């Protein structure tokens, strides 16, 4: 595909354009913005998991100093505000198609900014207070008296799926909103019937939260003169927020400008609109002043979208030689009180057979409502769950049937010669060298030295465990992306609708653009995050951004070269076909002129005032075909058997990301991804008290985070097996660290505790659980 590339910036660990403002305190996060005359809002939140709202008495709050208004769902309904159109059912060509029972449409309960009927989880906002200061608003929110009629509730995933469970939505006969089946029932049954062995496992991979360190915030401003709203709100994509919030307000999208510059961590959980986004812009019009909101960390724990929460029942049929014959899985996803995304269930469903050549599979995929905060695609949406299920099952099969766990994997890995490979539920893997990944991993993880290290650990009174897993994941995401490419005498600008939250788009996109155009990296700037400039774009999720951006920028550059040749031909008085482009330079042999992009922009201005602000190309691209990043991962742990304390001694990964644009950034993404996966395995858990329905983790004092002193240094290696699906061969690099992490940690713990009974400790595997497994057997937990 044109243009032919000479890579200069691509592949280099170029230091980031983003950093200077962030290391000097000049980032532009949402809460950093203030507007003249702004006031603050605080939410009144439900203390109950499920209750009917009988009445809301705001009279005392309205009397308090500084209070400007108290608003409820009824006020919003009176103004005709709509639901947030989350569009939770994944709908690109290659997404697994989820339906209700018997192929019926999925029932999506309404999600208004504030409910009028019931509260459905602890922490759900049901009224807002607006006051001159944040402190006044928060104090007045406590004075709003709500009369609740308590209702039966259910929080646990499996319990919520029972026919007689308390119902979250009356319109459904029970809480099951998705019930779909995939695969080949007949051949799977036959394979199980002829298999020598069948191993099964049941596991609940629990609930966690993204915990970006920037608490969510929003600043809304209504300008009466222009009739336009402005919303400052960090998210995973300003364009999406613009369309969704315009729909809620019932205005055309041009009436709303959304600004999302620096975003203090996203990890997926900020990719769906929060009710406060709509509330601040609506209230700004109501009050006539800008309205600001910033969540406390406790509010984040209660009402940020959460992640994971899948119950898996999985079985694998194996022949006498250890060849996998078929797989059965029953996956149950807890979407919480409102369905904002079915991506985790869908993504996991397409990858149920993992990195292995398993000819037949059947899969039942269900989703349930519950009286908990809603779940959303969290870093590596749906993949750590199914990777955990399959990889743990393979470890279990190896142990029970007497196979070597590495050799059992090797025997069944999909081979490069099988690529592209269509798995048993229809996902088509693009490329990969899975066995090479594993070979490299064994080397960099020094498996050969494991026995020596085990002996050393033992001499120190420690239990030693080593674990490994393979993984494959999918990157799909919103299929459409747009790039505006502008060539000016002073530099190149790309305007694009992705939304980084630390991934370095302003650097890596500039690397790609620079090489495509043949200009120095330093001359390229990337513009993001203001919908008055960025007209379209799919945001950042599912590892889509580098791939989609490079594809659409490639196309824009191709268009630009054509346009540039025309301009130059006119300027030089030659035919466009007489202008050649190579390595960043236009040449016209007839005139012996050589012109670079910046000279071209200068010449263009002399031709037409249309080029006064540069030569512009707008390019849209729609790309549905997914890619399948893959890799292998190992870790080594030591356990203090007297305390249950656990230390990660070694952690190594090999990650095939397709073409790697900036290895410094990709390694960094892997590091952070690992930490989030390890965090879920060892410390993080949105635990709910089974007696009261109250979330028990509402602060960093209860919710254990990865920290400096509990994380190791990492050994990470990149593999570049190019994807044939897009111009630069890119897969994705943001989620491969996370996908195998829970499984590999559990694999190592399982290895360390193999003398203490069967595995099956629920995550997070805290010291008390390790100790209990050692002293009472793992089954005791």
């Amino acid at each position: 595909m044109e243009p032919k590339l000479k890579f200069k910036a691509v592949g280099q660990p170029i230091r980031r354009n983003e950093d200077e403002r962030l290391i000097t305190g000049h980032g532009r996060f949402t809460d950093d913005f203030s507007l003249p005359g702004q006031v603050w809002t605080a939410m009144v939140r439900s203390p109950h998991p499920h209750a009917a709202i009988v009445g809301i008495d705001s009279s005392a709050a309205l009397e308090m100093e500084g209070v400007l208004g108290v608003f409820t769902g009824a006020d919003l309904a009176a103004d005709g505000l709509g639901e947030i159109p989350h569009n939770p059912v994944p709908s690109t060509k290659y997404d697994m198609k989820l339906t209700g029972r018997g192929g019926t449409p999925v029932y999506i309960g309404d999600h208004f900014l504030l409910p009028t009927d019931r509260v459905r989880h602890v922490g759900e906002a049901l009224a807002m207070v607006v006051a001159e200061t944040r402190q006044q608003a928060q104090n007045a929110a406590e004075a709003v008296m709500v009369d609740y009629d308590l209702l039966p509730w259910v929080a646990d995933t499996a319990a919520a799926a029972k026919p007689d469970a308390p119902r979250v939505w009356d319109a459904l006969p029970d809480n099951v909103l998705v019930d779909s089946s995939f695969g080949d029932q007949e051949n799977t049954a036959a394979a199980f019937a002829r298999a020598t062995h069948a191993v099964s496992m049941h596991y609940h991979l629990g609930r966690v939260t993204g915990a970006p360190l920037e608490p969510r915030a929003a600043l809304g401003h209504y300008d009466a003169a222009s009739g336009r709203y402005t919303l400052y709100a960090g998210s995973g994509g300003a364009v999406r927020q613009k369309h969704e919030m315009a729909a809620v307000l019932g205005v055309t999208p041009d009436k709303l400008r959304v600004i999302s510059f620096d975003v203090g961590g996203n990890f997926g959980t900020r990719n769906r609109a929060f009710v406060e986004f709509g509330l601040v812009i609506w209230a700004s019009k109501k009050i006539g002043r800008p309205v600001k909101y910033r969540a406390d960390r406790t509010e984040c724990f209660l009402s940020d979208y959460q992640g994971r929460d899948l119950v898996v029942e999985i079985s694998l049929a194996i022949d006498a030689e250890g060849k996998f014959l078929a797989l059965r899985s029953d996956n149950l996803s807890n979407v919480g009180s409102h369905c904002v995304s079915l991506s985790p269930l869908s993504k996991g469903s397409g990858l149920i057979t993992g990195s292995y050549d398993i000819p037949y599979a059947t899969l039942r995929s269900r989703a349930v409502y519950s009286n908990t905060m809603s779940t959303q695609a969290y870093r590596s949406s749906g993949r750590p769950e199914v990777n955990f299920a399959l990889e743990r099952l393979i470890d279990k099969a190896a142990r029970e049937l007497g196979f070597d766990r590495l050799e059992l994997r090797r025997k069944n890995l999909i081979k490069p010669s099988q690529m592209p490979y269509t798995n048993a539920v229809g996902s088509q893997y693009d490329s990969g060298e899975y066995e090479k990944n594993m070979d490299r991993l064994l080397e960099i993880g020094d498996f050969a030295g494991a026995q020596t290290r085990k002996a050393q650990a033992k001499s120190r009174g420690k239990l030693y465990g080593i674990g490994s897993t393979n993984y494959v994941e999918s990157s799909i995401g919103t299929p459409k992306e747009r790039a505006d490419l502008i060539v000016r005498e002073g530099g190149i600008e790309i305007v694009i609708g992705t939304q980084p939250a630390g991934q370095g788009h302003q650097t890596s996109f500039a690397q790609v653009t620079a090489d495509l155009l043949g200009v120095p990296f330093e001359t390229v700037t990337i513009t993001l995050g203001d919908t008055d400039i960025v007209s379209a774009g799919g945001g950042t999720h599912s590892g889509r951004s580098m791939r989609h951006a490079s594809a659409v920028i490639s196309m824009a550059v191709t268009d630009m070269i054509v346009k540039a040749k025309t301009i130059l031909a006119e300027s030089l008085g030659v035919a466009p076909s007489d202008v050649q482009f190579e390595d960043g330079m236009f040449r016209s042999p007839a005139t012996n002129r050589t012109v670079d992009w910046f000279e071209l922009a200068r010449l263009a201005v002399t031709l037409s005032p249309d080029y006064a602000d540069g030569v512009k190309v707008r390019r849209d691209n729609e790309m549905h075909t997914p890619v399948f990043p893959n890799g292998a991962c190992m870790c080594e742990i030591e356990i203090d058997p007297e305390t249950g304390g656990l230390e990660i001694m070694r952690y190594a990964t090999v990650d095939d990301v397709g073409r790697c644009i900036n290895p410094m950034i990709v390694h960094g993404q892997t590091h952070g991804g690992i930490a989030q996966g390890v965090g879920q395995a060892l410390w993080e858990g949105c635990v709910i008290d089974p007696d009261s329905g109250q979330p028990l983790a509402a602060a960093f004092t209860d919710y254990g985070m990865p920290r400096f002193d509990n994380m190791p240094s990492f050994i990470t290696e990149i593999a570049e097996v190019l994807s044939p699906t897009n111009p630069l061969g890119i897969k994705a690099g943001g989620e491969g660290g996370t996908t195998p992490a829970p499984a590999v940690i559990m694999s190592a713990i399982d290895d360390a505790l193999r003398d203490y009974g069967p595995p099956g400790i629920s995550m997070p595997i805290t010291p008390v659980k390790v100790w209990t497994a050692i002293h009472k057997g793992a089954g005791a937990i």
Partner: protein
Amino acid sequence: MSAIAMNVNGSNVRKEVGDSTLLVEFLREHLGLTGTHVGCDTTQCGCCVVHLDGVSVKSCTVLAAQAAGRAVTTIEGLARNGELHPVQKAFREHHGLQCGFCTPGMIMAAVELIATYPGRLDEHVVREEMEGNLCRCTGYHNIVRAILAAASQMLGPDRVVQPPADHMPAPRKSEG
């Protein structure tokens, strides 16, 4: 309301604020110094670390009134005459930040650690002494390296034990 005066980044400031105003609120909302961030309510995350008379503190857990009459340095005051502090440079050079939200507190904590730690700094010391700062993006790997690199520059290589060089071979390439 009380008049609170202090020296911030070398300038004397004075503002009328409520007595319950936190130092971080004073800096962000009354002085417009938004580089210091708030990430939690429980003195855990360290996004708000500033120096109070040269000592690192979590400014979300100090009242502005408690800092009255004293000298505060924030991330905005770290660079001198346009020259970035060695720790700032090292964070960029070693990719010690991604989203950048924890970064100001992280840098302020690291500057104080390097300036005051009496012994030799190594990876273990940095990991133990920096535990009061959370990062959700980096997994800490590159921050540790940034701090040790800056420390070596500031204190001299004899005072710092560098971690083993990162395993970073050229990517294994294949056309797929």
